């Protein structure tokens, strides 16, 4: 082993994380949310908007909620309405949206009849999503997958067509993964905007049409370069599961999805978030999507050296929750970041120690390493050097996904040349030091080994404390990121509904059947297929 890490603590931490995840599972199972119900409608193919640009899933779910019917699941009631009115799914959706049909006047239909009708539609869409996953696997098999760390860059012009130009240019320069940054504030919208969009703020709206446009563009440039270019978007905020569904339908490859980010940094209600993320991750798992967790955020508000253990603790929790949603270990892209104060003596050693530690503790995970942002100042020259050190740490510690730092961080969203310089920087360093990882060992009992074990011990004790009092209480006490959130506070609680005994949603059953089968093993990176992440040595 490269760094001698006390595996007994790793086991203790992982078991505490398991208890934490089990602790909130009853809440997850007892509730549904308006966004989950809207997702059900979207998966059933209802995704248009009315003349005020209000999405049909919102209109219909709001009507059902006002009528007090959501506890049975929208699938049951839309099925009942179809049977009662003798209309198809899209016909009944339009009739409800135009208020020609009202839920008030729909009688309960026989459960088994409803199930038969809905199950038929649900199976159809699931096989479509599975087809998208298999299509990805075929494309990957045909292309050159390169070697990790895979270069991940962002585009953020606000205009999807401009994003396409930037993304294609980046792919040609050598980027493997393109993330389209979302318009700031979309996470707080309780609906998903519709159609191609050309005006966003600090990013581009996540819409199904925009997903499709970028997917087609990346497939095209991938064919030209003989590589498979991966597409990333955000699966977070008040519409988390709806966006997961859109990503599944449009073959996105990765989605940013963190178990606690929305609660802590967007003040979204914790019950809403936990319930939503479970269903979202099931969709992600089924679609063969790699989730990216957002542990870097813990360090943007707190000191990266002092709070390093909160990153590790969150990684364990994200892993435990993700596993319970059916994600395979190689779909869990746990996040961490290079954020220490550049003025700190031996800062690089500490960063490298922590990066190696994450690699050892999560051997199969496609770890996502995030660049310096907090200490980027506008001095682009020093910033470019900091990014270089970050790239060196990434290649030495064998990260899977390297989110490239951009020298103009804190100045503007990246210009074409900024991204070019970032990719040039990464390619130079990673090629120049390609096999350094295999040549070096760390000093026994040295600074780095001490540091890694110290962080691990702190994280373990934090996790055990959280397991003791439950995750929701820990968040209420401000144990994560020093942010306190109330169980019944924050946005979106009014969209959390306790399920009735009759509750019906056809999708979890279909998904879990596939996810728990022994041959479920989505191909994510191509050969070598074993060691989907980077693989332990």
């Amino acid at each position: 082993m490269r760094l001698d890490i006390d595996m007994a603590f790793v086991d203790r931490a992982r078991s505490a994380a398991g208890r934490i995840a089990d602790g909130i599972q009853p809440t997850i199972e007892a509730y549904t949310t308006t966004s989950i119900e809207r997702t059900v409608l979207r998966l059933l193919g209802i995704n248009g908007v009315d003349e005020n640009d209000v999405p049909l899933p919102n209109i219909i779910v709001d009507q059902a909620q006002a009528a007090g019917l959501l506890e049975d699941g929208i699938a049951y009631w839309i099925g009942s309405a179809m049977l009662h009115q003798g209309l198809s799914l899209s016909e009944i959706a339009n009739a409800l949206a135009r208020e020609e049909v009202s839920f008030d006047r729909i009688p309960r239909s026989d459960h088994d009849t409803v199930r038969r009708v809905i199950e038929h539609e649900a199976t159809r869409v699931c096989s479509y999503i599975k087809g998208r996953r298999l299509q990805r696997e075929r494309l990957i098999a045909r292309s050159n997958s390169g070697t990790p760390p895979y270069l991940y860059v962002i585009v953020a012009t606000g205009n999807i067509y401009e994003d396409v130009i930037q993304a294609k240019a980046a792919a040609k320069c050598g980027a493997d993964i393109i993330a389209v940054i979302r318009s700031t504030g979309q996470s707080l919208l309780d609906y998903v905007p519709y159609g191609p969009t050309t005006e966003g703020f600090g990013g581009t709206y996540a819409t199904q049409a925009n997903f499709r446009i970028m997917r087609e563009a990346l497939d095209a440039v991938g064919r030209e370069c003989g590589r498979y270019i991966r597409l990333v978007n955000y699966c977070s905020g008040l519409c988390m599961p709806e966006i997961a569904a859109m990503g599944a339908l449009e073959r996105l490859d990765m989605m940013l999805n963190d178990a606690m980010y929305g609660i802590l940094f967007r003040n979204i209600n914790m019950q809403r978030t936990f319930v939503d993320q479970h269903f979202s991750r099931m969709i992600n798992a089924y679609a063969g999507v790699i989730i990216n967790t957002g542990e870097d955020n813990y360090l943007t508000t707190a000191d990266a050296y002092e709070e390093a253990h909160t990153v590790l603790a969150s990684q364990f929790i994200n892993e435990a929750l993700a596993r319970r949603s059916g994600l395979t270990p190689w779909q869990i892209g746990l996040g961490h970041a290079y954020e220490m104060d550049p003025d700190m003596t031996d800062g690089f050693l500490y960063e490298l120690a922590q990066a190696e530690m994450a690699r050892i503790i999560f051997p199969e995970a496609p770890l996502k390493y995030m660049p310096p942002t907090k200490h980027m100042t506008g001095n682009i020259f020093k910033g470019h050097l900091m990014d270089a050190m970050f790239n060196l740490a990434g290649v030495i510690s064998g990260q899977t996904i390297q989110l490239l730092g951009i020298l103009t961080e804190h100045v503007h969203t990246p210009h074409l040349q900024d991204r070019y310089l970032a990719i040039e920087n990464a390619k130079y360093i990673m090629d120049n030091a390609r096999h350094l990882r295999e040549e070096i060992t760390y000093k026994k009992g040295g600074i780095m080994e001490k540091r890694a074990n110290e962080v691990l011990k702190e994280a373990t004790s934090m996790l055990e404390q959280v397991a003791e009092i439950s995750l929701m209480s820990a968040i209420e006490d401000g144990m994560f990121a020093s942010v306190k959130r109330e169980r019944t506070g924050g946005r979106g609680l009014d969209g959390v509904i306790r399920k009735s005994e009759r509750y019906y949603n056809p999708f979890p059953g279909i998904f879990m059947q596939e996810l728990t089968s022994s041959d479920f093993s989505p191909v994510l990176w191509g050969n070598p297929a074993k060691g989907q992440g980077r693989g332990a040595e």
Partner: protein
Amino acid sequence: MEVNMTRVRPYGDTLDDGYMQLSFTLPVQCNAEARKAAELLGEKMGLEDVKVVYSDNIADNFSFFVVYGRCTHSVDMTAIDIPKVDADFMSYQEINGFIEKHIGRKIVVVAACTGTDAHTVGIDAIINMKGYRGEYGLERYPWFTTYNLGSQVPNEDLLAKAIQVNADALLVSQVVTQRNIHIDNLTHLAELVEAEGIRDKVLLIMGGPRISHELAIELGYDAGFGPGTLPSHVGSFIAQALARTIRNSKEHTKGVYP
């Protein structure tokens, strides 16, 4: 070395040599014509002796340049007048003493990153206990009561809180400035305050890395704080502005103007 403050020019290695470096991208294929174009562009920008020291294709039909040249322009620094927040900056102790003496009650401040903005670093530095660069945040001041509502707060919610707690000052942080979204946000808040009829009761203050006092004035705010602002700067301004308002309303009763 005597710098002429009325004719300040860039410095390379000799006074007034005017050396500057630029890098930029042109949306064309990189070739001899493109390099010439980069050079001519430098000349049009007022550079002499323009040298394109590096050029490369960075994408299909995009070329990148690094250019050096000597700037022919100069600026008169003696004519620069930047509006600054009008306050005598005081220390932690002085501010608390000032409030006790001139206001006689705690000052209530409500702060937030409004609209879609999610960057709380600035507002946290000013408000939160911990403060910034060794200075306490306003939360720590015994004569301030503060409410930090965090990020992505709708203007309506910020104002609702301000009304509930009878705030004396609203502190708004805006970091995202792409496509001037901050201006729309700040404008909407000021209009909302006016429409509620409480503009006379609160100080409106903005802050952020791209915020200037000039912008604050233009949008009808009372102050704008840019990068490098410390909690005591904001505290001094609020205390003094509030004291002035109180003094003015007293003056008014004495009948100063027709």
